[in-house]
Structure formats: structure tokens, C-alpha cells
């Protein structure tokens, strides 16, 4: 169930449609401070259904919409798509490729799509159940969080073990 591709358009600093091909063992993402590397990580978290704006470093969910620069106007739609290779049929859908998308309009309306078909957030979560992919597993470690785990309280650490159970 490899992650083959990420497509971001209008999400944070990715005003233009930008595609990353991830179909490799180890992909490195590099660049100067402030260029948009962590925004790629946020795009992955967001498309998996993240509901907490603070986990995306914002205060409201519309903070993820590209909101302009020196010579660019802000946009009214953000869309991120993750494309998975499903030839192993780990995802309970009968397709070789599964594209999971999320859209947000400036008026706050949001949509989830699986292979271009609108679905509910619940359907998205069910799709990834028992695959090890998800927001509460350790599969996404944001910048600066490496130190937070050991300083968390003994009870807070439970979620890591509960998720694996």
C-alpha cells in the first residue's frame, strides 16, 4: 500500500498545483528555512482527515487556504490528494490505485473524496482502519515533536500502545 503521489493546490504556500512523486523507499525533502517543507507534512496530515487547526499550526481551518503574497491574490479553494498503490488490496476497495482527496472552500465548506467520489469523513477513517495509517499512529512526526514524547506524562504515553493494540 505504497504512497505514490501527493498533489497540493491552494494549500498553504502551494498556491499552484504542485505534485510530489513519493514512490520510493526513502524520499528526502530539502530547502531553505520557510520555503514550505513542513507545509508538505501538513498537507499529508490534512488529507488524512485532521480536524484540529492547531495540529496544522493554524488557529482556524481556513488558515490552510493560500492567503496571498506580494503579487498573488489569496485563493478560495484548497485541495490535497494522496494517491496510494492498492495492488495488494490492503485498502478495502477493488482498484489498483486509490486517490484520497480533501477540499476546503473559503466559506468553510469541506469535502472528502475517494477516487473522485464524495464521501463522509467517517468513510475515510474506515478506509484506513487497521492499515497502520492514521492521525494517531506514529506515522507523522511533526517538526520539534521528537522531544515532546519523553516529556509527556506517563498516562499520555498510553495512546502509542493503545493504537498498536
Amino acid at each position, binding site marked *: 500500500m505504497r504512497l505514490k503521489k501527493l498533489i497540493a493546490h491552494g494549500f498553504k504556500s502551494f498556491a*499552484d498545483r504542485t505534485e510530489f512523486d513519493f514512490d520510493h523507499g526513502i524520499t*528526502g525533502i530539502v530547502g531553505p528555512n520557510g520555503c514550505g517543507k513542513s507545509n508538505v507534512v501538513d498537507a499529508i496530515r490534512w488529507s488524512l482527515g485532521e480536524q484540529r487547526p492547531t495540529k496544522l499550526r493554524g488557529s482556524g481551518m481556513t488558515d490552510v487556504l493560500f492567503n496571498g503574497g506580494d503579487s*498573488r491574490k489569496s485563493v478560495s479553494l484548497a485541495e490535497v490528494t494522496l494517491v496510494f498503490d492498492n495492488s495488494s488490496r490492503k485498502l478495502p476497495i477493488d482498484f489498483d490505485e486509490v486517490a484520497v482527496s480533501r477540499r476546503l472552500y473559503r466559506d468553510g465548506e469541506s469535502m472528502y473524496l475517494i477516487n473522485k467520489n464524495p464521501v463522509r469523513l467517517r468513510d475515510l477513517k474506515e478506509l484506513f482502519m487497521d492499515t497502520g495509517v492514521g492521525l494517531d499512529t506514529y506515522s507523522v512526526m511533526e517538526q520539534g*515533536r521528537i522531544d515532546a514524547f519523553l516529556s509527556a506524562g506517563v498516562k499520555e504515553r498510553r495512546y502509542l*500502545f493503545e493504537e498498536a493494540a
Partner: protein
Amino acid sequence: SRELFTTAFVEIRDNFRVLFRKLFAGGKADILLTEPEDVLESGIEIVARPPGKEPRSISLLSGGERAMTTIALLFSVFKTRPSPFCVLDEIDAPLDESNIDRFTGMLEDFLEQTQFLIVTHSKRTMSVADVLYGVTMGASGVSKRIAVHMDREDQAAVA
């Protein structure tokens, strides 16, 4: 659910004991339940003893030792419950060169089951990537993706 938790806990603990010793080239580590009689409510205690040192509270570990301990824990969970992909954002920032090598060495042990996306500023970490993507931002605050190759000089510097 009590059985499920206990099985996962024991497996993660056994993996952690092995992976810690591998990442630190020695030493000893363990995971304990603060209230073993109440598995579903108990807190989780982490014990980590780098090689040559006495057992001490984990708050006295150095910045790099804490990061390596958390990396050992992360991989212990992955060994128990593999995740198809894993995204790491500058997890190597506190590490010195020899710890970066141990970390990237361990990544390679997990490539069968997990694909990694790694944000980094370290040339040493870059050198183990199959592909590098550069991100740049123009004057208008818009991010773009560019292809990046490590040149011969940088490759040699980390060899």
C-alpha cells in the same frame, strides 16, 4: 481488549530493548507499567541507560540521547504494527554525525514494510535518500518543487 493491550505492550517492550541497544551500540532500556495490576489505566514508564552510564531519570538524558530514545521507541512500535509510510520532519536536528549514521542505518532495516518521507537540513541524511525534492519559495510567497541532486563534492563529504 486487556489481552490486546498486554500483547502489544510486551511486543513493543521486547523490540525497544533490542532496538535501543542497537541505536546506542550498547546500554540497556526498558518500558514498565506504573500500575501493572490495572493494565487499561496504567501509565507508561520509560527507562533508558546509555552505555557506560548509571541508570538515571530520563530527564537527565542529553538532547541527542532523548531523540535517539524516542526514535528507538518509534521503530519498536513500527516493528510490532508496521505502518506503510512514515513522515519525519527534521528528526535529525539534535543528532551528531555518528548518531545520524545509526539512525539512517536503522531506516534501511525497515524499508521492506515502511516507506519514509524525511524533511532534513543534514547532508548526511540526504545521502541515504533514494530521491531528493527541493522546495523553493519565490518572491511572491509561493512554494514550488524542484529536482535536486547531491553533487559529487557533497557526496564525498559524507562518505
